[in-house]
């Protein structure tokens, strides 16, 4: 029997590293449905969860998989599912249920080229806007995008920590290349891993108000079966959790739901700057495309071009302030992403015409080459 934290040096795929990150974060429930290129996440969890006393269930489809992790989380278990585009579409309805019921959970999307069944074994980043707006209604969501097997290990832990802290679903938006690529992954000792647990309900059980704002606007949570009176519904509800079909209830609930994310973006948003201090041109990228970006920056610098990169680690919520700040001091930007312009639209919105912004996109199935990025910067900005 192996422990939950597999301390040591490994050569593993991003999918396996994601599963190990979940276990290190304390995940004890996985409900899933296999799909290329995310199957290896489920496969690893199916092997590993029974070793540490957790539960793995293969559900009948992705709708049920998403429902199952909400249920497990309501019972107190840190829970996760993984999928790719077609399954992600099916999960959208219940993702909204997790948002409105404020149920912590982690959903991993190992993106492949779409639409529909597309290119099952080849990567893309075409679900980024679906991650933001795929479920109906207004809401805020947290989505993180790892650039290596090592990073997906840590970001999966972070995803669980943010899910618990803010009582929200958190998305890991990775892709086939990261999911199927093998690299060295170093897993630290268990005591070196920082995990966060949801704030639990306290006090008199008959007076508990399950949706009353606590610290950061997040209500403390009672496990089903703890004896607290709780009511969980997808309808607009009041602080007691009861359906309240009024404009005032909708306003108050949405104000807090959206506010708990928007008011804490400084705590949530993570990004990394690479050679931006003196840069004339900035690459904005995330996930596997940031690897194209790093290579492009290094090759551009070797040719005397002052290029830097802003790598979005948290894609949603969007690093608006940082992009506005960069737009005020550079000559141009390019967004590098394996889709035909999604996060790019957000970059354009934030730059608001201050400097020219161009897309280096691709419909999917392959990585974008660093040469294409350099060529675009040369042509579009006349360097």
């Amino acid at each position, binding site marked *: 029997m192996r422990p939950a934290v597999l301390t040591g040096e*490994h*050569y593993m795929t991003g999918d396996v590293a994601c599963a190990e990150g979940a276990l290190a974060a304390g995940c004890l429930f996985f409900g899933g449905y296999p799909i*290329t290129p995310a199957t290896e996440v489920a496969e690893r969890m199916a092997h590993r969860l029974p070793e540490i006393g957790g539960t793995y269930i293969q559900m009948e489809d992705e709708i049920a998989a998403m429902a199952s992790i909400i249920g497990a989380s309501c019972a107190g278990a840190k829970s996760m599912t993984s999928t790719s585009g077609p399954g992600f579409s099916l999960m959208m309805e219940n993702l909204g249920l997790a948002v409105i019921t404020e149920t912590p959970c982690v959903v991993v999307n190992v993106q492949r080229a779409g639409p529909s069944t597309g290119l099952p*074994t080849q990567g893309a980043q075409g679900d980024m806007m679906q991650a933001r707006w795929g479920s109906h209604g207004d809401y805020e969501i947290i989505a993180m995008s790892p650039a290596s097997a090592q990073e997906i290990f840590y970001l999966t832990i972070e995803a669980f920590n943010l899910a618990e802290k803010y009582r929200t679903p958190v998305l890991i938006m990775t892709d086939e290349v990261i999911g*199927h690529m*093998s690299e060295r992954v170093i897993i630290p000792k268990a005591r070196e891993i920082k995990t966060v647990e949801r704030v639990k309900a306290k006090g008199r059980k008959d007076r508990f108000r399950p949706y009353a704002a606590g610290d950061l606007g997040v209500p403390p949570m009672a496990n089903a079966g703890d004896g607290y009176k709780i009511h969980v519904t997808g309808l607009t509800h009041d602080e007691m959790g009861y359906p309240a079909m009024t404009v005032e209830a909708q306003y108050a609930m949405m104000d807090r739901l959206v506010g708990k994310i928007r008011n804490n973006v400084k705590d949530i948003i993570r990004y990394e700057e690479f050679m931006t201090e003196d840069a004339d041109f900035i690459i904005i990228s995330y996930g596997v495309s940031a690897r*194209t970006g790093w290579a492009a920056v290094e090759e551009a610098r070797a040719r005397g071009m002052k290029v830097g990169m802003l790598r979005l680690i948290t894609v949603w919520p969007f690093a608006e302030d940082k992009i506005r700040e960069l737009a005020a001091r550079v000559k141009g930007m390019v967004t590098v992403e394996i889709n035909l312009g999604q996060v790019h639209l957000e970059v354009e919105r934030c730059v608001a015409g201050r400097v020219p912004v161009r897309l280096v996109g691709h419909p999917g199935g392959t990585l974008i080459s660093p040469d294409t990025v350099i060529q675009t910067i040369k042509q579009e900005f006349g360097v």
Partner: protein
Amino acid sequence: MQKLEVIITGFGGQGIVLAGRILGQAASLGDHKESTLIQSYGPESRGGACSAQVIISDGTINYPYVRQPDILAAMSQAGFDKFVNDVRPEGFILIDQDMVKVKGLERDYFAVPSTRMAEELGRKMMANIIMIGFITAVTQSTSLEATRQTVSASVPKGTEEMNIKAFNKGYDYGLSLLKARDKKASGQAGALA
């Protein structure tokens, strides 16, 4: 920065991805270099085109796709045809001689009957391990010790001995091929002098 780009290619079922994984893992965990392994295959589980791209480097590997291979190991004709013209002029081309016909290739290459040798050992599916031994001897992309240990750690329990035998066979074949070439080269030099 030393960087080595490797493509192992064949069809699904030959253990191409496992061969790539052994090389990548030996470089990473055994030789303590950086390494990435990309696996490319189609939706079918057997018979389709399949390739493993391995990059081994002293430094960080950003872009994980092979741009110009230093080493091509081809175990199918389709794979050979697809990648042979991309190999660096000073790079290595290795083939399974019963699976690949080089057809007018105007440069040096190294051939091994890996599938036939595996059949002689009683298991055709060990052709990939023989090829790994051959790559190790001819190109020294990874160290002998790290690669041998990784083979042992990567195959199903109970088959380690058999696979090490296959690895050694490929390695020895590579070494004797190199020796024969050295001899020939020095012989020629002697004749010219």
